[in-house]
Every structure is written in C-alpha cells, then in structure tokens.
C-alpha cells in the first residue's frame, strides 16, 4: 500500500471512531451513538491497543519476548495517579510515565540482551512479579490492596474531560498520534533494520547494524508505550489496585498481540479488541473465558501463526490472485 493510501485509510478510521459515541439522528443518520458503557469499553480498547502496540514493536518487529507490559502499564498508572493527586498537571505525568518506563526498559534490557535469546523473557517475568510485590506491599504510596481511588480526569487546555465522550476523544487523539509515530518509525530505515535483526541477527550485525542497540531501543520504546498507556488508564478507570498489573495480565498482553498478528501494523488493534471485547461477550460464562481464550491461542498458533491479520491478508492476497 502506498504512503498516501495508508494515511487516507487511517484518517477515515479516525473520523469514524470519533463519531462512534455521537448521536447522528440530528444529522439525519439513523445512528443513536454509543452509550456511556460502550464509550468506556471503546476507550479501554484504545488504551489497551497503545500498550499492545508497544508489545508488537518488541515481539513482532524486534523478535524478542516481553512479559512485563502490564507492569509497565502499572508503573505509568501509579505514577500518574500519585502525582496528579499531588497537583502535578496530567501532561507532565504522562510525559514522566513514558520517560520513566523508557529508562527502566533500558536498565532491564541492557544486561538481559547481553546474554542470549529468551533471557529478556525471564528478566521481564521476574520484573513483573517484583513490581506487583511493590504495588501490593508499599501501602504508604500505592495504597496496597486497597488501591488508589478517585483519580481525576484531567483538563486539556482549560477544557475539562470529566465527560466520558470528551475523555474518549482525548484518548483517541493521543492514540492517533502514537500510532502515527510508530508507523513513521517502522517505515523509516529503522524499520528495515528491525526486520533484519529479527530475521537474521548474525547477518544484520555483519552489515553494520548494531543489533544490541536496536533491540534495546525497541524494548525501551515498547515499554514506554506501556507506561503511557498506563498513564491514560488511571484517569479512565478512576481507581487502581495491583490486580490488573500482575503476571497474568502481562501474559495476556503477549497473547493478544500474537492473536491479532505480531509484526503486522494492525495486529495490536485487532488483538486488543478481542482481549477487551471477549470478556464482555462471554459475560454469561465468566469463569470460562480465560479457558476458551487459552485454547483459542493454542489452536491459532498451530494453524495460523500469523494471527488474524496475517490470516486475513493471506486470504485477500489469494482472492486478488484468482
């Protein structure tokens, strides 16, 4: 797809998404707009997709494994909740969340990537458990299992975002910017280097590509996406406790990206959509949902390791040929 068509399609999707919670009957279109809960779910999807984009950068583009994305989301969420309650503006908290998680990403990734493949997976696994312990035990700052409540939604240029639709638009705008940034990176020469280091790190290294540095950068950048997603998550749910940032959710982040299609640009959005919507659809079977999800993942890996987006693009390509 050429640059201008992808941009055009992206813009069109953006407009459609922006209109999703709006009652269009006034404009002669028989569409009542999403209600409060629907808008909330849509916002949650966007926030999840931002974190999943980060995972996709690490897993799909750099070929590494991260099991710490929920921990990074947690760091962003706690940081934002704590400092905005102390009166720091949201913008500062958001930037600080991204920066802090980027720096932690470097600090974790640097020693792990020196050793051998899969060490990053174990180090991030350990890090997630460690973060969860800190969230749970350090009551004086995180509130422990009681969590932090009444996190306020921010004001943007004097425009209060308490209203759910306004907050949705705010999150949508940030998602759009972050999507564009990532799109820019993966189509720049950096993206070409990512492909090279995933497919054949030995050869990439011999062509002057600093494999360790690029891998470290993708990991730190992907983690920062997690931190920024967390920064949006806190004011969205208005109450945080340690449970969504435990090991289980970190594993789910990895699974959702692979289900959507790792290494494809739209994969994280599809995967995040499934991860957010599936528990809603399967509400009647509440306890079964994780079981079904796990089986689904195993079947997908055996038959379509390219994920849903990979499968669809293969079908489209076959249609086009016949």
């Amino acid at each position, binding site marked *: 797809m050429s640059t201008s068509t992808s941009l055009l399609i992206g813009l069109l999707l953006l407009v459609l998404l922006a209109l999703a919670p709006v009652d269009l009957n006034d404009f002669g279109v028989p569409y009542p707009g999403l209600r409060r809960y629907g808008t909330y779910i849509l916002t949650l999807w966007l926030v999840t997709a931002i974190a999943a984009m980060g995972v996709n950068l690490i897993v799909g583009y750099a070929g590494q494994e991260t099991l710490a994305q929920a921990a990074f989301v947690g760091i962003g969420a706690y940081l934002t909740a704590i400092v905005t309650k102390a009166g720091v503006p949201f913008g500062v908290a958001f930037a600080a969340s991204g920066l802090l998680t980027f720096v932690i990403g470097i600090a974790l990734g640097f020693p792990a990537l020196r050793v051998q493949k899969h060490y990053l997976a174990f180090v991030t696994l350990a890090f997630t458990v460690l973060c969860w312990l800190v969230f749970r035990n350090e009551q004086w700052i995180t509130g422990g299992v009681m969590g932090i409540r009444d996190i306020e939604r921010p004001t943007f240029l004097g425009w209060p975002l308490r209203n759910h639709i306004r907050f949705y638009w705010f999150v949508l705008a940030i998602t759009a910017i972050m999507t564009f940034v990532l799109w820019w*990176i993966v*189509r*720049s*020469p*950096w993206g*070409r*280097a990512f*492909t*090279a280091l995933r*497919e*054949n790190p*030995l*050869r990439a*290294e*011999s*062509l*002057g*590509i*600093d*494999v360790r540095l690029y891998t470290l950068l993708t990991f730190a950048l992907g983690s920062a996406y997690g931190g920024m997603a967390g920064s949006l998550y806190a004011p969205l749910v208005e109450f945080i406790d340690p449970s969504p940032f435990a090991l289980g959710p970190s594993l789910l982040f990895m699974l959702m990206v692979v289900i959507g299609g790792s290494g494809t640009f739209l994969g994280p959005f599809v995967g995040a959509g499934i991860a957010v919507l599936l528990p809603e659809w399967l509400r009647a079977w509440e306890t079964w949902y994780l079981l079904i999800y796990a089986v689904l993942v195993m079947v997908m890996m055996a038959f379509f390791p390219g994920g849903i987006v990979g499968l669809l693009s293969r079908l489209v390509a076959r249609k086009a040929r016949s």
Partner: protein
Amino acid sequence: MTALLEVRDIEKSFGGVRAVCGVSFDVREGEILGVIGPNGSGKSTLFNCILGQLVPDRGTVRVNGRNVTALRPSRLNRLGVSRTFQLLQVFPELTARENLILAGQEHRGSRLARLFGARDAGMGAEADRMLDFFRLRRLEDEKAGSLSYGQQKLLDAAMAFMSGSRLVLLDEPAGGVNLTMLADLRERLEAINRETGVTFVVIEHNMEFVMALCSRLIVLAEGRIIAEGPPAEVRRDPAVIEAYLGH
C-alpha cells in the same frame, strides 16, 4: 607501504582442539588473496576470529594499522570491513533493492537522521548503481527469497559493497553456484577490484575459481600456514599436494 589487513599469531581452541595455531599474514591494498585448505584446516575459524564473530585466544588483527581484535562485527563493518557468509544470507522478506539499501544504510549519517530522513536513507542511487553493476536491475522489486539461488548469491555479494568497504572477506562465494553464474560472479568481482581497488580475501573450495581470481594464495592445514605465494607456485608446492592428498 603498510598492509591493509595485518593478522598476527592468531590462536583459537575449542575445548581441547586447537583449530587455529599461530597464523600470521598481511593483505596488501588492492590485492585478491585466496585462503585455501582441506576441510577442517581452520579457515572458517580464522575468518571468524578476524571478523569479531569469535574472540581469538591470542593474537591481534589490525586494519589500516588500527587494532580491531575482538571488535564486534557491526563496529568492524562500520570501520570499512565487509563480509559474506558461507551459507546464503540475504533477507528473503525484503526486496532485492531493500536488501542493498539495508546493507548500506548504517554507514551514512547519524542514527537519528535515519529516523527522520528519507526512507532509502540516501542509499537509493548507490543501490541502483549496484543493481546495474551486478545486472539485477530487472529484479529490484522482487522479494529476495523468490530469486534463483545464483541471483541470491550475486545479491549477497553485492551487499558487501554497499557500505563502500575497502576490504571485503568472501566466505565461499562460489559454493553451489552453477557454471555460467560462476563466470559472471568472477568477472564482476574482478571488475570491482580493478575499477575501485577494493581488496579481497576469499575462502574457497573451488580450486579453478580461486586460481583464476586470486593474485596470491595462502594454504592452511591443521591450523597452520603451510604455503604462501602466487597460485601457479602454490599448485606445485609438495607440502600442499601432501596436505590435500593426505586427507
């Protein structure tokens, strides 16, 4: 005149096996040096020690007088030393042209400039020149994985020249290439050497190819240099004949 590549007393053991024992040689600017020897004579280990893929137990490697021993391969490459691998190593998911751009992109400008600058990182013209030179122009937008073996081998070699390296180490460039393609490859390598003065070190099994391409040979056996000189001389050396027949 100082040597472009200076290899001194390289030693490397694996467990108890000494693969390379004290090899020293010089490579002069502009020459094509062949490294031959029977299987297991330590050629590949020597190559990997020179190129930073393995860390030698002893000895030094200098490029233009600068000590580069055990430098990481990416650093060495940015200092102007390129290589190819024994097994074919192109990136099958990228197009032929993208492969070439990739091979050159880390050598131009800063990393930050590559993030914000043009998609081809300013390597487009150079890639086109290389496509023409290796006669791959009509295949530029094909995925490298869909090219024939010989074409991939040409592309693989072409990638080594994208960075403007002055020293290129080729690990069995002729392996598995058919006869017509082989002549083509040799003729292109000779042309590059003649036109731009790039220096080559070639490991090769195909004796005919090596004898025709190289201006000088060194022969390894059991981790040591047993002969050195112009191809015609080496061919008659009794120690060389013995080493080959003995195996």
